[in-house]
């Protein structure tokens, strides 16, 4: 799998870039929309939650007027990239059936291409977020470079799941429909909009965090930006996300390989 991805790296990279460039093709601002959309999001969050509602993080986790917006964006922007990568990745094989019916290029190349697109747009969001923190007076540190690793792992996690789901989606188009609902539930079950201590009193729901595979990733972002904002995380912090990502990729690839002989028959 890695060999074929490497061989097609040029194709993946170029198409991911051009997808980013042309998602808003024909619009006057073009590629700028990739920046404007997350920017507006951040501005709205800060106006509503920090200026109007004056939400603050509990127990003064950070002392900043915009602390809630920072917390929200630190989790929500990576989550958005993950969710978009996952939903696009799941539709990937069907979306590229034109190629797949003619070329022997393996399916996961196209999944990788779609996922890479959202990795890149996620990078733009993160860059804006760092800029916002800077403006808000929540000084970014060099250790924030770990955001790149966290982001990469989270998107790779989506890539792994996508390999399995996109193969399933060929046979059951319901998969991508179901996924959008699952993603919605999943987001609210993950402490992105609220802080995890909100769940402290409710034990059964608290348990959900333990089994929620997205939580270790989101936690990672929160730790880098808020909890351990100036210190490098200990390597152990990455163990859970690494294991999850590896498991998703291996499992996803296993499912894809099992279904591969029939995928193009059904396209």
């Amino acid at each position, binding site marked *: 799998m890695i060999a074929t991805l490497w061989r097609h790296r040029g194709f993946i990279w*170029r198409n991911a870039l051009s997808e980013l460039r042309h998602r808003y*093709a024909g619009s006057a601002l073009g590629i700028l929309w990739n920046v404007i959309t997350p920017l507006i999001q951040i501005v709205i969050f800060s106006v509503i939650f920090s200026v109007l509602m004056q939400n603050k993080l509990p127990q003064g986790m950070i002392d900043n007027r915009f602390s809630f917006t920072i917390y929200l964006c630190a989790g929500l922007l990576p989550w958005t990239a993950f969710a978009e990568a996952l939903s696009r990745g799941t539709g990937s094989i069907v979306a590229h059936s034109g190629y797949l019916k*003619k070329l*022997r290029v393996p399916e996961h190349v196209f999944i990788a291409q779609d996922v890479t697109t959202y990795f890149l747009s996620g990078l733009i969001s993160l860059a804006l977020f760092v800029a916002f923190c800077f403006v808000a007076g929540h000084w970014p540190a060099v250790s924030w470079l770990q955001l790149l690793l966290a982001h990469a792992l989270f998107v790779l996690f989506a890539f792994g799941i996508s390999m399995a789901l996109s193969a399933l989606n060929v046979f*059951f*188009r319901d998969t991508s429909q179901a996924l959008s609902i699952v993603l919605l539930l999943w987001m609210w079950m993950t402490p992105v909009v609220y802080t995890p201590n909100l769940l402290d009193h409710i034990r059964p729901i608290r348990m959900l965090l333990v089994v929620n595979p997205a939580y270790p990733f989101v936690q990672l972002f929160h730790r880098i930006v808020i909890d351990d904002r100036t210190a490098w995380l200990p390597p152990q912090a990455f163990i859970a996300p690494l294991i999850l990502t590896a498991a998703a990729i291996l499992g996803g690839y296993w499912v894809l390989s099992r279904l591969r*002989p029939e995928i193009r*028959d059904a396209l």
Partner: protein
Amino acid sequence: MNQPIRVHDLSKRFKVYDHASDRLREWLTGHPRHQEHWALRNISFDVAVGEVFGVVGPNGSGKSTLLKILTGVLYPTSGEVSVQGRVVSLLELGTGFNPELSGRQNIITSARLIGLSEEFIRAKLPRIVEFAEVGPYIDHPIKFYSSGMLVRLAFAIFANVEPDVFIVDEALSVGDLYFQQKCFRRIDELRSRGCTMLFVSHDLDAVRRLCQRAMYLDAGECRVIAPAASAVDLYIAAMTEGGREKRITPRTASVPAAGAQAGGRPAEACARIGTADMTIQRVEILDEQDQPAASFVSGQTARIVVDAVAHADARGVSFGIMIYDRFGTVVFGIASDMIDGRRLEFTPGASVRYVLEVRLALQVGGYSVDADIGGHDERGRPVPLDRVSHCADFEISRQGERRFHGITPLECVARVEQRAARGPNVAHPRSAV
């Protein structure tokens, strides 16, 4: 590497589900809920280095499925398939073009997609760009290209790769005439260079012309693998028959006494098909003095003689002769009933001689002859009785200077007139040929 394409006992089954939910139930219960559609059943063939192998058959006979399995797009259900060397398929032509990228970038992307190496692409890029004939547009996004430019661009890539195995399909029929001719020229070039080819087409003349052997596929089953001309003939016969006449089978048998001097062929080259209610015993080409001849001068008359014997009652019989040039193009063909509108009846044991006197107004070159006897069954449907492909050869030899260009001298009258206003009106009537 002796057999670049090897297919052994290949079968392909598609599972057809009435509802998507049936597949889910099947997965959960393990109890099959699909119908099977066998697109290919027990197909075996090998293609040798440098051979051009044809595949013919009606729509839905499994041709595309076979191609897709050979190119690795689809997976076989059972059997073995091996294709060695660099495989390029016309099927892939132009796939992967991104409208937003420039022509040059698309060449690179597309070449990568069909699996060409970076060094190869870099080395070939200037030639491909030149070949595409799109001028300065090569660095513009291809969404501004005309469809003709797109086709040229796609073709330029294919024309400059050096495949070991080349798979040609109906894509050939999409382009304009210029494109098709260019394609054929490239195919000829590849063929002469010893490139192995698989040629799948509804253009039966092209299959006859380009292929050495061909397979006739019908409903996923291989009906015959034979020399291209006879596989095509069998296919045509089966089509006119609607596939009902089971007695039509290919036979390879020599036509006795075709005469070495008149270009007799070894037995296996003379593939025959037909019900054999009447059989052709002998095909001979004679000159005007009734002497066997194999060489003529353009414009001379030849007598093509077919001796046949009836083995059963034969109704509505006509005799046919086809003349092919060295490219396999039918130069001329005529059946006896086209000449006089008569169809004949023969009883068993009848011995018949058919003589076609034909003026060989042909270009210099080698030609070959097919002879066939067609009849009709009780219900008036046409039936091939016997057909012998390439049973005799002749040659039009050069004598003096070239008399005309092309395949055949059309009857013509030439005249040069000088207009009155510019001088005296002088006409030079002259007839040609």
